[in-house]
């Protein structure tokens, strides 16, 4: 195997490892941190089932963002759903063995690249042109958008502008990463740039604001049912406090 193939294989494993370990640590931290008080925010569901519905409205539809800002919602919602579709579109590359029939039908999903770029560009433009959003943006906020746009553009170049690499090699390299049956990767620079940037994206997931993905499920304002008068809500440290105090 060429040095570059070995390097990229190592990058891939390193990135995935950092991502998985980092996210696992963060999720463990969130899960083990107590929520001492009932703090659901309006409009608060009264039951667990209501919480599930609320969470689905937030995760799939971005309901709160829709209330807040229609433009941000449009850009953000298009970008996230396009990302999901493109993720599905990439699954066949990594599928070990025979690719299921359903994944052969994913060809048209490639067009999701355009709403993806549209959404990301809109979000980037807001950072430049809306004074409030410019004020709250750190360099990392711009860079993350630029990284995603660069990944999308290199993808578009390969898919729609004939910069595609040897697809047979792509399949065997990607599948090889999963099955530990490593093979050479194509050397086209657009392709290398594309996957290198994706590896970076994966690696920085747990140390960046991408933590909003696991975070939203742990947000007490969203995931609590408003049932304070029905059931006592108490954290371990508050129980200890109670045991140690004698007052009536």
């Amino acid at each position: 195997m060429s040095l570059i193939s070995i390097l990229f294989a190592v990058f891939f494993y390193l990135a995935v490892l950092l991502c998985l370990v980092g996210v696992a640590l963060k999720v463990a931290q969130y899960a083990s941190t107590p929520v001492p008080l009932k703090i659901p925010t309006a409009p608060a569901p009264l039951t667990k089932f209501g919480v599930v519905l609320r969470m689905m409205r937030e995760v799939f539809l971005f309901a709160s963002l829709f209330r807040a800002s229609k433009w941000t919602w449009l850009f953000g919602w298009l970008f996230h759903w396009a990302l999901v579709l493109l993720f599905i579109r990439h699954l066949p590359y990594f599928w070990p063995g025979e690719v299921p029939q359903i994944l052969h039908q994913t060809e048209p999903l490639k067009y999701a690249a355009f709403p993806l770029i549209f959404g990301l560009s809109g979000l980037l433009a807001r950072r430049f042109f809306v004074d409030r959003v410019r004020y709250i943006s750190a360099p990392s906020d711009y860079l993350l958008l630029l990284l995603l746009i660069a990944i999308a553009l290199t993808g578009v170049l390969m898919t729609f502008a004939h910069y595609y690499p040897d697809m047979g090699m792509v399949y065997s390299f990607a599948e090889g990463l999963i099955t530990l049956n490593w093979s050479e990767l194509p050397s086209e620079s657009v392709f290398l740039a594309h996957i290198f940037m994706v590896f970076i994206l994966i690696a920085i997931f747990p140390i960046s604001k991408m933590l909003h993905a696991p975070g939203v499920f742990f947000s007490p304002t969203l995931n609590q049912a408003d049932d304070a008068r029905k059931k006592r809500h108490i954290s371990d440290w508050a129980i200890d406090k109670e045991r140690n105090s004698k007052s009536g």
Partner: protein
Amino acid sequence: MSKFDTPKLETYLQTPALKSDAMASSGPFKANADMQKSLGFPGEKIDNWQQVAIEKMGETIEKYRSIPVFLDACVKCGACADKCHYFLGTGDPKNMPVARQDLFRSVYRRHFTFAGKYFPKLVGAKEFDESMLDDWYNYFHQCSECRRCSVYCPYGIDTAEITMAAREVMNAIGVGQKYCNQILGKVKKIGNNLGMPEPALRDTLLDLEEEIEEDTGVAVKLPLDNEGAEILLITPSADFFAEPHIDGLIGYAKVFHQSGASWTLSSYASEGANFGMFIGNYDIMREGALRIRKAALDLGVKRIIVGECGHAWRVAYSFWNTLTGIGGGAADEYALQLQNQLDQNYPQPQHIIEYTYDLIQKGQLAFDKSKNDHRTVTFHDSCNVARGSNMGGIENGQFLLPREVIKAACNNFVDMSESTIKASTFCCGGGGGLLTDDLLELRVKGALPRMQALKQSEETSGVNTLAALCAICKSQFSKVLPYYDFDPFMVVSVHQLVSEALLLDGDNSQQESKTL
């Protein structure tokens, strides 16, 4: 009238252009050493404050899941940026909820995250230095903890949680706010925010009884420390003292009288407000709640009902059972004793609005609505009721019940613009421990969005009465309404409207009962 310009009311609420540092020197007075020490905080800023502050931040991160989740999850989308009444009123960018959180978040990133430790510039991580502490003090005292931002955040990030944590950190290093900490000291010593001792309270209640009897000819009682009463009323002490609050208290008394229930106030727990929440201190908040548990046990009551106070109801409804076991499920001896004593056929605690609403539903209260015909009423949803509690045990009951009670007592009711009420309600501008004259400019400017909506209702529907069910809202409106050329007396308690229209058995007075 003032050293600042009151904002102009336009036809529509405008999102202001950024005015950097417009409110940078508008922080409130600091607590003195006595006030700080009475709550167990250092008397003045300690020498190694930075170190202790970082440790305290670490503690809040470990004790409250909301803190790490909210600090990590924000993507800086800006959804909240134009939702805060203080930003809309002042244009100061640090009054955008996300920017306010970023004061905390930038220090968190510097000290608690990989990216902030090694690439601080890249991710906007900052050191906790003197100027950062100044910003903390100023801007975490320009947040009324109203939670409006949390309704619009895709991750439910609630700036109130961050503000509370920041105030907790500042108190721990000896940098406290005068208004909140002085009041908490009074509660600790005397039992209410006003520092009103038992004899003064008793006198006030007797005066009120006389006043009601003069007006109506009916001997409506306001009992104090009446052991064996069925109901303990916990209400903000402002109800004993200030207009228009006191007319609300008269309203509760008339409703109790008419229902035939025996009830009582407590001189030991003569305060519904709990400023422990404002400073984010669990222990102090718990102490306040324990006073109420003790009063309920000592008086042997079957029910606890809470008067018109926004954050008091949030604390009562959402936190009391957690803090002290008022309700059910706690296992310590006093909580168990209270559980046996309280009548579990009723929700515990209950809001006075829920109580009155139930009586109306059962047809036990009769009204002469024409008594309120000189009014066209609108209702201000108080933030802590709207976004931190419920009423009636039905979804959105906290919006429905007060309106139904008002409509039962008034013929003319109109709502303000939909984007300024219910879950989206704008804070009055004085909540969260900011109801102090050293923050007057902030309070006046922060009231802008509410005043804007009120103006619109005045012009389109002839609204001349603003009903509220929170002591802070009532005081704040009384103060700021004149700045916007409204009549300060247009703000009323919901139970004042009830009081004026309620028909009492044995009321022989044909004359107009009581006007403003």
